[in-house]
C-alpha cells in the first residue's frame, strides 16, 4: 500500500540545536513532496515543496529539505531551531489526485 512514514513521533531539542526530521514514501512514480507545519491550535501551513529541479529546496523560516529519489526520502532540516519552532510537522506526498500525509512529528524546543 502507498504510504508516507515519518521517523520520529516526538523530537525534543534545545534552542540552537540542529534539526533533521525524516520522511520516506513508498510511491514508485513521479511525486510532488511537501512539508507542512502546524503550530499549536492553528491550521496547517506550507513550509516548502518539491516538484522538480534542484533536489535541495529552501522554505520559509530557515527550513530546507532534500529530495533523494533513490532513497524515497524527503528529510526536513534546520541548522538552528528556535523556541517558536515548537509545532507538529507533517510530510506529505501528492501523486495524481491523491494527497497523503505522514503521521506527523511533534517538535518541542526547550528555551
Amino acid at each position, binding site marked *: 500500500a502507498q504510504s508516507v512514514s515519518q521517523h520520529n513521533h516526538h523530537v525534543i531539542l534545545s534552542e540552537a540545536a540542529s534539526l533533521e526530521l525524516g520522511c520516506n514514501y513508498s510511491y514508485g512514480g513521479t511525486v*510532488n513532496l*511537501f512539508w*507542512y507545519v*502546524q503550530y499549536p491550535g*492553528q*491550521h*496547517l*501551513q*506550507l513550509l516548502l*515543496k518539491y*516538484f522538480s529541479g534542484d533536489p535541495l529546496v529552501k522554505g520559509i523560516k530557515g527550513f530546507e529539505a532534500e529530495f533523494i529519489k533513490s532513497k524515497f526520502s524527503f528529510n526536513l532540516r534546520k541548522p538552528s531551531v528556535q523556541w517558536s519552532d515548537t509545532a*507538529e510537522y*507533517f510530510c*506529505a506526498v*501528492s501523486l*495524481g*489526485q*491523491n*494527497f*497523503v*500525509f505522514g*503521521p*506527523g512529528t*511533534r517538535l518541542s524546543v526547550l528555551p
Partner: protein
Amino acid sequence: DTAVSQTPKYLVTQMGNDKSIKCEQNLGHDTMYWYKQDSKKFLKIMFSYNNKELIINETVPNRFSPKSPDKAHLNLHINSLELGDSAVYFCASSQDIVVGGNEQFFGPGTRLTVL
C-alpha cells in the same frame, strides 16, 4: 483576506444530533477537500471534490455527506453524531495538479466535540 474559511470554529453538541460545517475558498481553486484530524494529530482525508464532482471518497461512515453547491464551497453534513466523531475537521483547496502540484491550502479548522 481569508483564503479558506470555515464556520463554525468550535462546535459542541450532543450525541445523535445532526450538524453541518461550512467551507468557502476564494482562491479560485477547482478542488476542495475535507480532512479529519484526531487527537493524535493524524490527518486523514475524507472527501475530495473537483468542480462540484466527488473524486475521492475514503472509507467514511455514510452519516457524513459532503455537499458542493459550487466550486468555491464544500460543506460537510454529519448525521446522528457519535462520540468518535469528536475531532478537528479541516477544509482545504488546491489548484490544478500540473500547475500547483496539488498543494493544499488549509482552513482554520472546526473543533467538533460530541458529548
